[in-house]
């Protein structure tokens, strides 16, 4: 366990700069907004009288809007987290080779499973942690602003954010495990090369299906279904008909995002890719 902790600490330290980039992006974004607001205030472009917008009471419909607003609040940090997970995990098994230190790390008495598990879990966990920090920060900022207008409702906002967050955490695992798997096969631009191969298979199967009237499964449609279809990114708008409460919306979303077979498939898919990648990593020659 101590070995695994040491490996994880090392993997965190060597990737720290990349992990922290999303935080700097978000801070820069906020700084720009603040600067724009200050300039606009002094130019007299904005003349907000908050009392004009203060809501006397919050309706069920407002809660649903609040729920969805907080779901959307997660989208930008979520996309950033996916990009940075790809960046780190597609290099996970090759970065040491590129930096000429693979032999140093391989000369330590730590098993390949431990080393791969550390790289994978830090790649996923580190991005998760940064993603969660950013989302919580956004949540606090957004709710301070909403509270100014009397539209603060913690439960609906938190539930909206929470469900969306879970969806992205799952997407990060699946896409991260694909990047990790490809990094065991390709030394550079691993994820891109992997996607090109899947695309080529997809095109080949499509052509065969068309020409020979076969019914071969298309990898892209399977991956799309696996990664996205049940995620929090899609919302059944019929739920907004007014006939349901935000708590129904929350339960529905939670069931669609977390408590279902798709989650199990995603975890199995990720675990299989992780173990294949670890096996391939172990079988590599260390030159």
């Amino acid at each position, binding site marked *: 366990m101590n070995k695994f902790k040491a*490996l994880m*600490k090392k993997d965190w330290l060597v990737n720290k700069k990349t992990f922290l980039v999303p935080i700097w992006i978000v801070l820069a974004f906020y700084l720009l907004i603040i600067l724009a607001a200050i300039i606009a205030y002094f130019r007299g472009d904005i003349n907000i009288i908050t009392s004009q917008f203060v809501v006397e009471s919050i309706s069920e419909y407002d809660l649903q809007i609040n729920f969805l607003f907080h779901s959307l609040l997660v989208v930008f940090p979520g996309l950033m987290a996916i990009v940075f997970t790809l960046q780190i995990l597609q290099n996970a098994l090759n970065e040491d080779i590129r930096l000429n230190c693979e032999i140093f790390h391989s000369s*330590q*008495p730590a098993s390949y499973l431990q080393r791969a598990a550390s790289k994978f879990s830090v790649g996923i966990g580190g991005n998760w942690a940064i993603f969660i920090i950013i989302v919580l920060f956004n949540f606090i900022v957004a709710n301070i602003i909403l509270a100014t207008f009397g539209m603060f409702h913690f439960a609906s906002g938190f539930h909206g954010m929470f469900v969306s967050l879970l969806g992205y955490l799952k997407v990060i695992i699946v896409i991260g495990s694909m990047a990790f798997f490809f990094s065991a096969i390709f030394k550079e631009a691993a994820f891109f090369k992997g996607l090109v191969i899947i695309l080529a298979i997809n095109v080949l199967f499509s052509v065969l299906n068309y020409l020979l009237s076969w019914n071969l499964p298309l990898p892209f449609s399977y991956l799309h279904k696996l990664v996205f279809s049940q995620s929090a990114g899609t919302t059944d708008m019929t739920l907004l008909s007014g006939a349901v409460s935000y708590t129904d919306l929350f339960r529905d979303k939670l069931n669609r995002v977390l408590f279902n077979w798709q989650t199990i498939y995603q975890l199995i898919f990720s675990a299989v890719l992780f173990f294949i990648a670890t096996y391939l990593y*172990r079988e590599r020659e260390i*030159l």
Partner: protein
Amino acid sequence: MADVIKMKNVTKNYGKISALDNVSLTIPKGRIIGLFGKNGAGKTTLLRCVLGFLKFEGDITFMDMPITRHYPEIHEHVAFIPDVNCLDGRLTVAQTIEYVSALNSSWNQETAKKLLKRSNLPMDRKVAGLSKGMKTKLYLLLTLSLDVELLLLDEPTLGLDLVFRKEFFNTILGEFYDENKTIIISTHQVEEVEHILHDIIFIDDGKIILQDEVEKLKQNYAIYSISSDREEEILKHNPMIINRMLGKIYALMQSDIDIADAEVIRPTLAELFMAKVGGYDE
């Protein structure tokens, strides 16, 4: 004496190029062994096959454990120093020491403290920002703090200046070696390690061309020096190397040859290496 490493008919090919060609050898415990060969002779490949880093044909056992692939657990018993530039430049000195100490159960904190005190290493500096000399000190500290049975050095002092090279080998000898430990040094700088070696292995074109004890080897060969006008006397004994300098001829030959009035000098390992492997023989 127990054998630390046994290699039997080991062959390693890179495509059509044979890096090791049917190599068989045994490395006994408690010896300091020099592995010498020209660039591309197969020294690095041999060491990396021993560690299982490379796939090979044949049989290798390390302390009676068959090596069929890389088993990380063997690093509890063997420390490996390749070129010092292979440290992870993204970590600081302190982080590197902490990392290696946490992973190795053979880590000796007392030795580490002692070496650290002597080294003046900047603990908070990234390894990438260290000079090559500092990196060498760090690598030595990491390796010598491990209580292992075998130390493999693969061109460890490449690119270092003379002072650091001397310090490197003196530290290895002073801090690491005892009669229960084995050291294999692969290097080009034959003359710098000559005085610490017990045995030598010459490798050329992937083949072991000589494995012997240094003392025995030096007794078996001698350099005969006579004036140039007696060259014929030397040539009839088929010398391995001839050098002509300042009106004299220097010839490396078997030491049991008798040449009247010849000055007999003990050869250096570098001269024996050149004689066996070739380079400037006429």
